[in-house]
């Protein structure tokens, strides 16, 4: 067993500690770094010129901003939910993917958080949503879903980052002990907080870790519902539906799982971690993605059924989304997030790297179209015909979205480069249990 534990540690730790990382990583980092620069440029231009540089106007007051916010939150919540369930079920798969599922969740929250802040128009005053004793002596309006959102995003960011970091501490200690250079030893050592592997510490660590994983479950259901409430509590005919939270939770889960599948397949291929993320793991992930795509499909049917039962104006609004100016988005979301994942019924597709990448991206794109369809298509036929018009994102909005994609990719690349992507101590533990059974 000792020799195998050694193998786990060196394969995973040496990835993080190696001096050279290959040109593919560098090119990917340069490309995503360029997008991060674009993000900086678009953020500054919005700050200086105002939200007028965006294509938003009544009735489309949110536009791209909320589409991309809801999309990133979906990824964050889906990935968090997946990581939490793996921890709680003590499933063998968790050793392979829960560390980077948590990483994906954390980075996605960072990307999501950018949008509501910039869209305030004067982003430097974002702290006004926080209840502090202001000179105006007016408190925030807590009945507004936007203040719920403030609590939800900040809570998700704090809890996910803490959970991710606390789970990393023992592995950071391993990196500290294996680092070859003094600087690396110092840096990993400081972040490992002096972890020494005491059995008492392990017992507390595991208990706390599992407990916070339990807390994440209700958190993300509430959070995704909060995003949905932003639509449901308005009087817009297509949005004012009690089914919205369910739709957002279920499609968000499909989206989060598909991104985890995509990252798992890429890591398996790029870092040759096939032994630790084995075929069975990827197969199981594929089945989960397929199941969640089927649930999304059910909810699309539910949407049509609800519309058929609704009064005339909400019914027309929903059917306008399916057949009107933005019908393309609706049908694309069905093709990408429901039809294409049906490929995963085939065992060969579940085990193929190309199919994993293809389906992972496809669902991500599909849910993005779904959010676009709800947020733009849903607003098109409001009660007042005088505001019926169309919306298209401008270049600064597109740049902002591409920029967050770059930021996400850059954070993920740095994570893969400097931290253990697979939980080393859990893999050791599992191998030990296998060896002794």
């Amino acid at each position, binding site marked *: 067993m*000792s020799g195998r*534990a*050694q193998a786990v540690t060196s394969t995973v730790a040496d990835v993080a500690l190696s001096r050279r990382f290959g040109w593919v990583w560098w090119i990917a980092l340069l490309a995503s770094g360029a997008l991060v620069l674009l993000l900086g440029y678009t953020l500054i231009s919005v700050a200086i010129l105002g939200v007028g540089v965006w294509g938003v106007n009544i009735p489309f007051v949110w536009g791209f901003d909320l589409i991309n916010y809801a999309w990133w939150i979906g990824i964050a919540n889906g990935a968090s939910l997946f990581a939490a369930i793996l921890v709680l079920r003590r499933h063998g798969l968790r050793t392979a993917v829960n560390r980077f599922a948590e990483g994906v969740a954390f980075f996605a929250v960072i990307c999501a958080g950018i949008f509501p802040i910039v869209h305030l128009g004067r982003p430097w005053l974002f702290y006004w949503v926080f*209840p502090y004793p202001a000179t105006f*002596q*007016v*408190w*925030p*309006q*807590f*009945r507004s879903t936007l*203040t*719920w959102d403030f*609590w*939800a995003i*900040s*809570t998700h960011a*704090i*809890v996910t980052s*803490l*959970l991710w970091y*606390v789970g990393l501490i*023992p592995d950071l*200690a*391993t990196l*500290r*002990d*294996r680092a070859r250079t003094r600087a690396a030893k110092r840096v990993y050592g*400081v972040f490992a*907080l*002096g*972890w*020494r*592997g*005491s*059995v*008492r*510490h*392990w*017992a*507390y*660590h*595991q*208990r*706390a870790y599992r*407990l*916070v994983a339990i*807390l*994440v479950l*209700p*958190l993300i259901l*509430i*959070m995704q519902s*909060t995003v949905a*409430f932003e639509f449901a509590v308005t009087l817009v005919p297509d949005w004012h539906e009690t089914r919205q939270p369910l739709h957002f939770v279920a499609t968000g889960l499909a989206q989060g799982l598909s991104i985890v599948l995509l990252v798992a397949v890429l890591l398996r291929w790029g870092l040759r971690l096939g032994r630790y993320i084995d075929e069975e793991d990827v197969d199981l992930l594929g089945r989960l993605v397929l199941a969640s795509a089927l649930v999304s499909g059910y909810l699309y049917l539910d949407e049509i059924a609800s519309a058929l039962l609704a009064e005339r104006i909400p019914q027309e609004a929903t059917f306008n989304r399916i057949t009107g100016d933005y019908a393309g988005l609706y049908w694309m979301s069905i093709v990408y997030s429901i039809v294409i994942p049906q490929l995963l019924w085939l065992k060969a597709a579940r085990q193929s790297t190309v199919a994993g990448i293809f389906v992972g991206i496809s669902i991500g794109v599909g849910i993005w179209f779904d959010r676009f369809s709800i947020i733009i298509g849903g607003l098109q036929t409001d009660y007042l015909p005088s505001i019926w018009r169309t919306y298209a994102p401008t270049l600064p909005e597109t740049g902002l979205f591409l920029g967050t994609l770059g930021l996400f990719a850059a954070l993920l690349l740095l994570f893969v480069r400097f931290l253990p992507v697979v939980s080393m*101590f*859990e893999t*050791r*533990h599992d191998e*030990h249990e296998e060896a002794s059974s």
Partner: protein
Amino acid sequence: MTQAPYGVMAEFKTPDALLAAVRSAKRAGYTRFDAYSPFPLPDLAEELGVRTTVIPWIAFVAGLIGAGLQYGAQYWMNAVDYPLNVGGRPLDSWPAFIPATLIVAILWAGAATLIGLLLILRLPRLHHPVFAVHGFERASNDRFFLCILGDDPLFEDNETRGFLEAQSPMIVREVPACG
């Protein structure tokens, strides 16, 4: 006069050998010792009498405080200090205060658990006597250690060393006190 050592440490190759050594240390009457392992060993933690029930209590109490503060703050700010009538709804419109209350309860419970964990473990503590032991860096990799502390009532340098050597370890080393 030389300073009393922090303890004596034995290195083992397998968790089972460590567990056996801990059991015989308990039989021999030692009470102050600690075990180190590269991954969690629940059986051994039980043997050492570690009770972690304080963790869920921290989460529960912190969650209640967070929920109480958040609901109270919302009620006081929107119904008492600056009452704002929106569409004729009651000032204490409690259903609208529930989502943020639940979320903040989770924030308090989660943050208190993880930060409380570090306080209970007395981390961060970058320096510790065990780190001075040659070969201890493998405690984060593939080796298992038992350290009998110098402040154990039964601790006597040579005797304790002899006891550990009888547990068929790979090696026994003294852990010097620091400072």
